[in-house]
């Protein structure tokens, strides 16, 4: 097989990570709707989970429980780290959505451009 294509396929997990990361970041920057921005932000954070977890898995590796029958172990630490990061991501999303609810109460809209257009008159 062509070595370039082999490289491409061998790192397919990285490509998914990069795709999620860039599309998430694009949504945050391009959208005016505040809820959509938060969805993009969540997507962006999710890509990091994949970045951590996928190198931690070794094909054929088992959980690191010492046993003479197994010699290849997967690294459990990334999972633990990402559990923490997921909690952080959920908290950020929850707080962001709560803020959007309050912004909707105060301004009557969740479109950022509409609020900025109004903000100039104040």
């Amino acid at each position, binding site marked *: 097989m062509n070595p370039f294509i082999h490289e491409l396929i061998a790192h397919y997990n990285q490509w998914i990570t990069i795709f999620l990361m860039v599309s998430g970041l694009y949504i945050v920057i391009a959208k005016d709707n505040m809820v959509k921005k938060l969805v993009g932000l969540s997507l962006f954070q999710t890509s990091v989970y994949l*970045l951590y977890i996928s190198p931690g898995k070794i094909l054929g590796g088992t959980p690191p429980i010492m046993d003479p029958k197994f010699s290849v172990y997967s690294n459990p630490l990334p999972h633990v780290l990402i559990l923490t*990061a997921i909690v952080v991501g959920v908290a950020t999303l929850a707080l*962001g959505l709560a*803020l959007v609810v309050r912004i909707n109460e105060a301004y009557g809209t969740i479109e950022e451009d509409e609020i900025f257009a109004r903000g100039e008159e104040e």
Partner: protein
Amino acid sequence: MSSSQLPALQVVLPLLGAVICAFLRRGTLAWGVALCVTWTMPVIALSMLWQVLATGPISYAMGGWAPPWGIEYRVDMLSGFVLFLVSGVAAVIIPFARKSIATEIDSTRQAWFYTMYLLSLCGLLGITITGDAFNVFVFLEISSLSTYVMIALGRDRRALLAAYQYLIVGTIGATFYVLGVGILYSLTGSLNMVDISSRLGELGFQPPVLAAVAFLFVGISLKLALFPLHSWLPGAYAYAPSFATAFLAASATKVAVYLLVRYFFSVFSVSQIFEGLPVSEILIVLSVAGMIGASLVAVFQEDVKRMLAYSSVAQIGYMTLGIGLANKQGLTGGIVHLFNHAITKAALFLAVGAIVYRMKTCKIDDFAGLGRRMPLTMGVFVLAGLSIIGTPGTAGFVSKWFLAVGALEEGWWWLVAIVMVSSLISVVYIGRVIEIAWFREAKPIADNAREPPASMLLPMLFLAGCVVYFGFATSMSAGYASKAAAHLLGAEQAIEVPAAAGTKQ
């Protein structure tokens, strides 16, 4: 035995205090808890600092798990200094909070504010004390999430918008940081900063390290509001409750600057990654752009809080300039400016907070005649303003002096000229407020303006005293900073010892 647990207590006490505040529900009671916790913080920080000066860095294995596998809390010259700075400023300004918060936040929400304040303090101290790269991310998010809430508690509805924007930018910053850490982890297999550094040194240069450096630096720069990544800062400072603004201005960006220094000198510099990379040059260009650009924008602000926020962006430029210079004098200037700017900006924002307490406004035009109505408050403003400008005899002069000497050491005359120009622009924006406050007739809105109560006045006067004191007694602040700078620049030797200890196990 108890003294050996100090690094853990530094972080755990504010965390427990926050939980207690959340249960109390009464604003004044919660303030009492926050006061007790905040006042123990500098005591802990100072006793650790003494221990560091006497016997060298403290390494504390969290939960008894030995580093580099467990989380290490590491107090050295620099982190001890920043711990003391953050906790010390917080301890000075917390008495100010009660009356200021009572007028600016609904009584049902005051206890929540103190909960968030203590969580934020916990996060900031945690970032500083931990030696584990991922642990930094966790504390970064603890402090950021609580900061978003503090900002959103501001009276103006624009506070909600500012908090939302900060949440978006801050989360992108933290995610970039954690991306960088992830790449470093897959390269080195370690999360302990000392360990990462020595393993990077063994690894030599590899392209993915560049990606890690880029993600880490952009992420941290978003947090410290390095120009042009500062867009979140003016809104956040302008609409947050006055006490929160003073606290954040003195601590949050300073801790982010500390993190940048930590990565720049303790993690990457040792492994010679930066050779042939223009990292210092980029940092210097951005610092200079911030010093001039943000100062110019500050001149045209109508709101004093917003003006001071842009001034903060410019002042952060001085700190990153010191890091970019990366020689002993320059780095000393950067570190001592961290200290000097923290006390100066805290004094300025407290003075504005006291004016908001009496006048319910902080528009520059409404300051007319306040010099005679609130002479002490405005006196503090003038004194701290002089320190922002860098007048001899104030703290701000000391740090600018070291930066100028550091720039001259590199033979960069133009940099000294830029520092001077930036100072001259700050004369314009500080002078404008002083002119309006002292030389214009008072407006009707200022009719019942008078000095704030003692609990608000004393912290201000104390900070103003510090601004003058550290302008003359430079041996304590600058002397210590130069020791810390020498320690950082000589980190190549210092790093060898723990690396050798790690391989033995």
